């Protein structure tokens, strides 16, 4: 079964063989997590780094901002039986426009926010495919924990 994750959303799966996918990762970042023992995994697709720019919208949808979404996402995975210390975390997205002054550099700020928040939770990112000016799709297969990225018609394992 395929589970498609929209923007500012997350999905977890626990059935071996299921695939979790998110599309249209521009500046947004997709975080794929997988516990290879409990076979619990999922993808979070967050849009912006910090909820402080809009606490009202953060209250309506915690999945929109890295700082509200990532801790909740990890918590939800643990409720499904994952163990934080076993989680393999891979990240994709965070692309940017041609913006010499860095004014609109949300992609870069999203990458940094993901790294920092995961690090604060004691989690290191195992692999990432970030930056550039391309849109990506991120896939996770429950069972073998395979993660891959599709972009510009090419598929690359992560």
């Amino acid at each position, binding site marked *: 079964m395929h589970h498609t994750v929209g923007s500012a959303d997350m999905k977890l799966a626990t059935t071996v063989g299921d695939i979790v996918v998110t599309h249209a990762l521009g500046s947004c970042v997709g975080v794929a997590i997988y516990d290879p023992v409990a076979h619990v995994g999922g993808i979070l697709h967050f849009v912006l780094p910090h909820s402080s720019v809009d606490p009202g919208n953060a209250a309506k949808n915690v999945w929109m901002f890295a700082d509200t979404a990532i801790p909740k996402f990890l918590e939800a995975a643990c409720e499904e039986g994952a163990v934080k210390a076993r989680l393999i975390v891979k990240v994709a997205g965070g692309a940017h426009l041609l913006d010499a002054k860095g004014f609109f550099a*949300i992609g870069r700020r999203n990458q940094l926010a993901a790294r920092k928040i995961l690090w604060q939770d004691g989690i290191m990112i195992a692999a990432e495919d970030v930056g550039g000016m391309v849109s990506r799709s991120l896939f996770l297969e429950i069972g073998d924990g395979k993660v891959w990225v599709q972009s510009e018609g090419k598929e690359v394992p992560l």
Partner: protein
Amino acid sequence: MISLAVLSESVDKLDPMPISLPKLAEALSDTGSNLQDMVRIVEYDAALTANTLRWANSAAYAPRHPIMTVRDAMMRLGAGRVLQLAVGGRVKTLLESPCPGYDLGEKELWNHSVTAALGADLLSGFATQPIPPVAFTAALLHDIGKLIISRHINGEMHRQIVDVVERENLPFFEAERVVLGVSHAEIGGVVAKRWSFPDILVDCIRLHHDPDDESHVSPALDAVHVSNVVAKTLGVGMGSEQMNMVACANSARRLGLTPEKFEALCASVMTGLPMIEELFDGAKSRLRAPVP
């Protein structure tokens, strides 16, 4: 290169806009016009009158008492929103069609356009400069040139554009100019002109990738440029252009935005999308896709 005559022929095959819409756009961009002038334009178009009343009474606007007059409806919706919904209703079917020349599938160009249009709508809550209401409609139509060019790009031209982007390190729309002799923004301007929209709206579409153009710098053009950046940032309607466009910080600064305000704008657009999509669904009418 694509023949301009062939592109013009495609533009000419588009159904015309009802005359009330460019007139309303003209009134909106004329500081001498008042609400009564715009009410009169709407009242002379029976279909637009009916739609305006329907939108004002829709669940999205939830009036306490039924709105019975065009004047009350326009005060409720804002004349800019009336124009945007009316034009959106006319072009929805057209923009929902796939754009294979730009790797945009069904509805992708429409979704991108609506996201940008909502960005322009919501900008006034974040900018320190007033946003001219005509910018809402220009943002909705900013990429309409892609629809025309898409029908004339073959695989070889597409490959050449990508090659030029990579070899010469150019933004996508400039590579279009090198390979095709014209960009989607310029052809979009031709479409807006063909529909008799006022010059300010035509310029917003024609120059949406070039907002620092000295003789055309304006809050409306800045609003359309920034709205396009919002849609790209949110990953809506990337196509073969992907994120390969210049995002002009000067545009954002002229409007009084900061990076934090820009992020907050993106959050509001993300949250508001379902509502605006519902409104446009209710505004839909038919406009034929041009025959290549």
